[in-house]
C-alpha cells in the first residue's frame, strides 16, 4: 500500500499518460481500418479460427477412415476436394487439420513471446553481467539456423507436434529477447523512468508498469509475423516426420504425404498447401497493417 503510493508519479503526469494512451489506441485502430490488406487478413484469419473451432461439426467425413474403393479420386460431389491414397476425404482432413496447425502456432508464439519478453526486459533494464551473459548465450543460439535448432530440440524431446512447437518457440526466443532489450534500452532513458526511480519505485514495478506497456507494440507485430513462420516451420518438421503424428490430419504432414502423388493427384497437395498459404498470408497482412499503424514514423501520414 505504502509502496504503491510512494511510486505514484505526480497527478498531472498520470492524466497525461492515460489520455495519450487512449488516443493512441484509437488512432492505431483508425489507421488499421484504413489498411485494406490488414482488414482482409483479419477476416480470413477469423474464418480460419472459426473453422478450427467448429471443425468436428463442419467436416463431412471421418478424416482417418480409409476407404479403399475410392483412392486417389479427383474432386467430385462425393468428395469436394478429392480423396487421398488411402481413400480418405481431403476436405475433412483440411478442416480438421486447422486445429493442430493453428493451436501449434499459437503455442509456439506464446512460448517465444513470454520467455523472450522476460529475458529482454530483465537484461535490458538491469544490464550488467546478466545482460552480458544472456546476450552471449543468445549470440550462440543465433549462430544456428532456426530450423536446425528446432530439429536439435525435437531430437532431445522426441517427435510430436507439441514438442515440435516447443522447439519452434524456443528457437524464436532470441528474436524477441533482442528486440525487447533494444526497446527497453531506449525506453529506460526516458525522464519518467528516472522520475519513478527517484520516487523509490521498485525494479519489478518499473519494469511491469512503465517499461512493458511501452515495448508492447513491437511484440505484437513480431508475434503476427512469427505465427506465419511457426506454421511454416511446424509444417516443415511434420514434413520431416518430426511434427504431427499419423494418422491425425495436419496440414504440413498431409502436404508431405502428398509429395509422392504430385503428378497424378494434384488435389492431395494443393488444398493443405493452400490452407497453409492462406493462414500465413492473412497473419502476415494483419501483422504488416499493425506495424504500419504502430510505427511512430508513419503516424503523421
Amino acid at each position: 500500500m505504502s509502496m504503491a503510493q510512494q511510486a505514484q508519479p505526480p497527478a498531472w503526469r498520470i492524466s497525461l499518460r492515460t489520455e495519450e494512451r487512449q488516443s493512441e489506441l484509437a488512432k492505431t485502430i483508425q489507421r488499421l481500418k484504413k489498411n485494406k490488406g490488414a482488414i482482409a487478413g483479419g477476416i480470413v484469419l477469423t474464418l480460419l479460427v472459426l473453422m478450427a473451432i467448429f471443425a468436428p461439426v463442419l467436416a463431412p467425413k471421418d478424416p482417418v477412415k480409409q476407404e479403399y474403393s475410392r483412392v486417389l479420386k479427383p474432386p467430385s460431389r462425393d468428395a469436394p476436394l478429392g480423396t487421398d491414397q488411402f481413400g480418405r476425404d481431403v476436405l475433412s482432413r483440411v478442416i480438421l487439420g486447422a486445429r493442430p496447425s493453428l493451436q501449434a502456432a499459437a503455442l509456439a508464439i506464446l512460448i517465444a513471446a513470454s520467455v523472450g519478453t522476460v529475458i529482454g526486459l530483465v537484461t535490458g533494464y538491469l544490464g550488467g553481467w546478466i545482460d552480458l551473459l544472456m546476450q552471449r548465450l543468445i549470440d550462440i543460439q543465433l549462430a544456428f539456423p532456426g530450423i536446425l535448432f528446432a530439429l536439435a530440440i525435437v531430437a532431445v524431446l522426441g517427435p510430436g507436434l507439441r514438442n515440435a512447437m516447443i522447439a519452434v518457440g524456443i528457437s524464436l526466443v532470441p528474436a524477441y529477447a533482442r528486440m525487447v532489450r533494444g526497446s527497453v534500452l531506449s525506453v529506460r532513458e526516458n525522464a519518467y523512468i528516472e522520475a519513478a526511480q527517484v520516487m523509490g519505485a521498485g525494479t519489478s514495478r518499473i519494469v511491469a508498469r512503465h517499461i512493458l506497456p511501452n515495448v508492447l507494440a513491437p511484440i505484437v507485430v513480431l508475434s503476427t509475423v512469427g505465427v506465419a513462420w511457426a506454421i511454416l516451420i511446424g509444417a516443415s518438421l511434420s514434413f520431416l516426420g518430426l511434427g504431427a503424428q499419423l494418422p491425425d490430419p495436419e496440414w504440413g504432414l498431409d502436404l508431405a504425404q502428398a509429395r509422392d502423388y504430385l503428378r497424378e493427384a494434384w488435389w492431395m497437395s494443393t488444398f493443405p498447401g493452400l490452407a497453409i498459404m492462406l493462414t500465413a498470408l492473412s497473419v502476415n497482412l494483419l501483422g504488416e497493417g499493425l506495424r504500419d499503424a504502430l510505427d511512430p514514423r508513419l503516424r503523421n501520414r
Partner: protein
Amino acid sequence: MIVRRRVELVEDYQKGRMSRRQFAKGAIALGMAGSVVSSIITAGQTKAAPARRAASYPARYQQSGGVLVFGAWQTPDTLDPQKTGLAATGRLLANVFDPLIWQFPGDDTLYPGLAKSWDVSPDGLEYTFHLRDDVAFHNGEPLNAESVQYTFDRLVDPANQTLVPVPLGYDHVEIVDDHTAKVVFTKPYAPFLTLLARGYGFSYMLPPKFAAENSEGMGLKPPGTGPFVITDYAHGSHATLERNADYNWAPEYFGRQGPALLDRIEWRIIEESGTRASTLESGETQLIEEIVPAQYESFKENPAFQVITQDTLGCPRTVHLNCTKFPTDDVAVRHAMSYAVDKRVVTDVIFRGMVEPAYGPLEKLTPGYNPAVEEYYAFDPEKAKQILDEAGWTMNGDYRAKDGQELKALFIVTAKDNFDEPAQVIQSQFRDVGINLELTTEAQPTIFTTYNRGEQNLANIFWWDVDPEALFSLYHSSQIEQGFNWAHYTNPEVDKLLEQGFIEVDNEKRMDLYKQAQVLIMEDAPAIPVWGKRQLMAGKASITDIKFNLSVYPLYYNTTLGE
C-alpha cells in the same frame, strides 16, 4: 559371438569410430543383409547423381544382337567381387564372372558351371570339384584347380581386406590334379553348395596371376570367365561390357552355347528414379532397374514398354511383433493382429499390383519354403475381434482394454524403407478391430539399436538370402538384442531346428527341418509377413529373355534387343 559383433559394428559406425568402408567390410563379413548394408552405406554418401552426356549409338543397333544401354540405379563401390556386398556391383559382375555351380530362382536343380561335376563326402567335410578344361579368363589365363585354391586363399587372407563372408567351418583347398580341386571343412556347413551358386562373393572364380599382380585392377576391370568383358569403367558414371567371343561354357539352363547375343552393354549410372524412367521413355536407354509404383503402372499400360519382374529369395517384407513387450507379449494379441491385416490392400492399393502378398517367414522361391504357411491367418477381422474378446480385451470407447490397460501398440517404422504407407494401412486395419497403433519413424542405422532394445511392439524387416538359413538370423533366440530377431522371439524347438539346419548334410532332411520351423513360427505368430520383395525392371517391349541368378541379378547372356 558373431552375433554380438553385429550390434557393436553398427554402433561403431554410428559413432564415427569406423569409416564407411570398414563398416561395410565388417557388416558383410558378418553376413548382414545386403540391402541393409547397402542402404547404410548409401545413406552415408552425398554424391550427386551424375548427369551424363546423352551420347547416342546410332546405326550399330541393327547389327547382330545390338547394343543394350542400361540405366543402373546405384554406383558400384568397387568391381572386385570379394570386396563388396553392393547389389550394384553384383548385378554387373553376374555377367562377367561364372560360378562353379549354377542355380536359379524357383528351380532346385544345381547346374554344372565351371565345375563339370562334384562329389560331397558322406561326413559333409569334403567337396571335390571336377573342373572344365576348356575355360579361359578374359586375360588369357586358363581356369584350373589353382584358380579355385587362389580364390579361397585370397578370400581368407586378412591382408587382402576382403569383405564377403567366409563359409563357416572352411579350412583349405587342396589341388588334387590340374583340373580337380577339393574344398575341405572342419565341420559340416550345409548351405555351401547353394552359396557357391549364389553369384556373390566366393561364388566367382578369380584369375590367380592377374589378381596377385594387379590387386587394384581387380576393382576396375577384373577379368572373369563370363560372357561379357569389362572394357571400360568410370566410377560413378558408366561401364562398358563387350561380348566375350570365346565363351562356350554356358550352363544348360540357358538352352544354348556360344557367345552372348548382345554385342555390348553400356552400363550407365542414373541414380534418380524419375530421370532413369525418362531416359527409357526418350529412348536413351533400353532397360532400367528399380522402378517405383507410378512408373510401374505407366510402363505396364504402354505397349512400347514391358515390365520385367522377378521375385527374390530370403525373408519377405515383414512386421516383427515384439514377443516380450506389452501388449504384443500376449499371443492372442499377435494372433488377432495377424488376422486383422489385409495384405491385398497393401499390394493392390498402395503398390498397385506391383508386388504380391507374402504368407510365411520365407519368400516363396527360397529353397525349403513350406506352402503350409499359406493356410494361416487369412484376412478375417471378425475372427480377430473374437480372439480379442475371448482373451478378455473388451471395447472401451474406440479401442479395447483389459484390466484398465488400453490395447495400444507402438510401431517404430524404419524411415525411407517403403513402409510408411503400408504402416498406415495396418494402423487403420488395427483400428477396425479395436487395436490402437501408434506410428513413429526412425532412421537407419540408429533404429537397429532401438529395435534390439525392444522399445517397439512392431518393427519392419526383410532379408536377402538364397538359403533357408535366413530364418536363423531372424528367429533364433541367440539373435535377440544383438542381431536381427527384432521380434525378441524365443522357442527352444525352433532354435534346435535352426541349429540342426546348419549341419544336416542330407538336403531333403535339411529342408524338412526348415519346413517344421516355419510352421512353429506361424503358430507363435512373432511376425506378420506382408509382401514379397521383387526385382522390378522396365524396358523396351522388344527386349527378350532376361534370366536371373539366385541372388536375382539379371543375366544378359540370352538377351536381345529384338529389333
